[in-house]
C-alpha cells in the first residue's frame, strides 16, 4: 500500500478546475517531488489530501485513510507532518507556545533534536520572526512527532541557500529512516537533488510521472561544438537536435536523438571542440511547459512530438 494514493482526485471551484483526475501513488519511504508552476494546482492537491477541501470527484488515501472520511483521516494525521506554504502562525504567540500547543496534541518526541538543528528563536513572538525563522519553526513543527509521512508545500521558499542545503540533507536522512516525504516545488534543481520520483502538474492535470533520472534524460543532452569554418544552425541537419543557436564561434543545441547518429554527423564535420553535458533543468522543465508563450519554431514542435511519444 502506498503512503499516498490518489484515484481520479478532482477538485473544481465552481467552473474553475483546481485539479483534474489525478491518479498516482507515493510509495512508503520515497521522496516524491510534486512539480509545477504557481497556479498548476499543487496546493489544491495537497489541501485536498489533508481533508481541508473535499474532492469534487475521485478520492485519495493518506496512510490508508480515505480523505472523505474525517474520522479515519484524523487518526491518520497523528502520523502525518504538514508544512504549509503560508504558515500563518499566531503572531502574538511565541514559537515555544506554538510548539507546546502542537506537541500536546500530536506529540513532540523529537522536538529538542530538531531545535538543535533548525534554530528558530522560540522564546520570541512570531511577529518578530523573519520568513526564514518562521519556516524553521514550521519544519520543527512538521517533524517533531516523528511522523511516517511529511507533506510540504514549497518548503524551501524563504530559506537562504545554506539553510536550503541543510534542509535537503535532512530530508535525505529522514528518507533513510523510512519517512515518506511528499513536497511541492517549482524549483527543479531542488527536485533533482533530493527526489526519487517526480510528478509534474500542469493546469491541474498530471503531465508526467517520472524517476528523476528519466526526467533528466528526457531533456536530452546539451551539445556544444566548434568546427572549422562556420556552421549555420539551419545547416546542422541532425534529426533529434533542437534549439540550435550560435554562441560566439560555437554552435549549441539540445540533442535527444540516437548517440550514433550524433557521432556520425559530427564525424562529417571538421570538429575542433565538442562538449556534451547535462541540459539545464529549466530546459527539461520546458518539455512539459514549453508550449505556451513560446514561438512555435520547429524545435519546439519536435520536442512536443517526443513528449507525445514517450
Amino acid at each position: 500500500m502506498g503512503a499516498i494514493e490518489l484515484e481520479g482526485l478532482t477538485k473544481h471551484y465552481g467552473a474553475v478546475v483546481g485539479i483534474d483526475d489525478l491518479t498516482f501513488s507515493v510509495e512508503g519511504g520515497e521522496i516524491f517531488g510534486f512539480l509545477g508552476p504557481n497556479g498548476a494546482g499543487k496546493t489544491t492537491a495537497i489541501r485536498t489530501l489533508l481533508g481541508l477541501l473535499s474532492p469534487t470527484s475521485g478520492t485519495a488515501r493518506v496512510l490508508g485513510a480515505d480523505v472523505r472520511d474525517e474520522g479515519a483521516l484524523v487518526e491518520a494525521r497523528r502520523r502525518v507532518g504538514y508544512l504549509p506554504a503560508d504558515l500563518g502562525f499566531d503572531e502574538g504567540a511565541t514559537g515555544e507556545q506554538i510548539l507546546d500547543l502542537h506537541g500536546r496534541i500530536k506529540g513532540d518526541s523529537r522536538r529538542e533534536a530538531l531545535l538543535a538543528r533548525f534554530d528558530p528563536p522560540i522564546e520570541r513572538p512570531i511577529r518578530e520572526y523573519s520568513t526564514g525563522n518562521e519556516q524553521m519553526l514550521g519544519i520543527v513543527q512538521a517533524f517533531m512527532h516523528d511522523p511516517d509521512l511529511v507533506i510540504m508545500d514549497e518548503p524551501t521558499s524563504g530559506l537562504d541557500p545554506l539553510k536550503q542545503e541543510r534542509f535537503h540533507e535532512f530530508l535525505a536522512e529522514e528518507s533513510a529512516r523510512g519517512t515518506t516525504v511528499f513536497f511541492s516545488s517549482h524549483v527543479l534543481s531542488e527536485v533533482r537533488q533530493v527526489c526519487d520520483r517526480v510528478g509534474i502538474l500542469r493546469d491541474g492535470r498530471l503531465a508526467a510521472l517520472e524517476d528523476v533520472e528519466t526526467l533528466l534524460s528526457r531533456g536530452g543532452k546539451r551539445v556544444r561544438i566548434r568546427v572549422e569554418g562556420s556552421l549555420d544552425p539551419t545547416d546542422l541537419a541532425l534529426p533529434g537536435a533542437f534549439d540550435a543557436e550560435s554562441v560566439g564561434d560555437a554552435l549549441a543545441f539540445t540533442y535527444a536523438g540516437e548517440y550514433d547518429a550524433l557521432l556520425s554527423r559530427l564525424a562529417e564535420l571538421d570538429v575542433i571542440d565538442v562538449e556534451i553535458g547535462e541540459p539545464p533543468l529549466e530546459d527539461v522543465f520546458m518539455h512539459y511547459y514549453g508550449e505556451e508563450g513560446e514561438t512555435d519554431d520547429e524545435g519546439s514542435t519536435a520536442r512536443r512530438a517526443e513528449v507525445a511519444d514517450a
Partner: protein
Amino acid sequence: MLEFARFEARRRAKGTAALVGGVSLLAASFTGLFPSIERADVDMDAYVEAFPPALQEAFGIAALDTIEGFLAVELYQFVWLLLLGLYFAYSAAGLIASDVERDRMDLTLSLPVSRTRVLAEKFLSVCVPILALNAVVPLVVYASVVAIGQSIDPVDLLVVHLLSIPYLLACAAIGLVLSVLADRADLAKRAAIVVVFVLFLVESLAASTENLEWLGYVSPTHYYDPTAILVEGSYDLTGMGVLLVATLALVFASRHRFVRADVGA
C-alpha cells in the same frame, strides 16, 4: 483535551483582563454618580414618563431614583445588554473566519483533531471573558453601592449576572454562525454587530407596537431583562432556558456548516 481553548484563552488573557478592568471601572463610576443624581431632586417619575415608550422599553427605564433602577438602566441595559452583547458577537465572529483568512486554520486542521473539536474549543474560549466579567463585576458593583451608603439585594445582583451568561453566550453564538459563513473576518465581525444591534432594535420596537410583539421573540434581548430582576426581583428562568437552547442550536448549526465546508476555498 481543551488544548485549543486553553491556548486561545491564554492568548486573550490580556484582553480579558483589560475588559474586566475597564467594565469594573465603568461600573464603579456609574455607581459613584448615583448620589448626585439622587440629590438633584428631580422628579424621576416625570422624567421617565417623558421618554417615548419605545425608548423606555429599549433601555428598561423604570425607577431611576432607586439604585437598582439606576444600575439596571445605566449599567445592565446599556453596557451589559447592548455593548457587551455586541462585543461578544463581534469577538466570536472572528473565531473561525480570521484563522481561515490568515491560513492559520490549515495548520490547525492538519493536526489529529476533528473540526467539531476545533469549533467547540474556540467557542469555549469565549466563555472565559464572559465568566470573568460576571465573577468580578458584581463584587465591584456591590462594594461601590456599599461605599456610597446605599444597599442592593445581593441575590438580585448575583442573578442579574448569572442570567446574563446565557444571554452573552447566545450573542457569541450568533457571531460564531457568521464566522463559519463569511470567508473574511472583518465581514463576519461587522455582520455580527449589525445582526445583534438590529435584533435589539426589533425587540424594543416590537414590544411597544401592537400586534408585533411576537417579532420580539427572535431577539435574545427578549429573554434577559435586568430591570425586572433588579427592580422587581422577578427572574425569567424560562428565558434563560430559551437562550441556552438557542446557543446550543446555533453552535450546532455552525458545526454543521464548518465540518462540510472547504476551508479557505
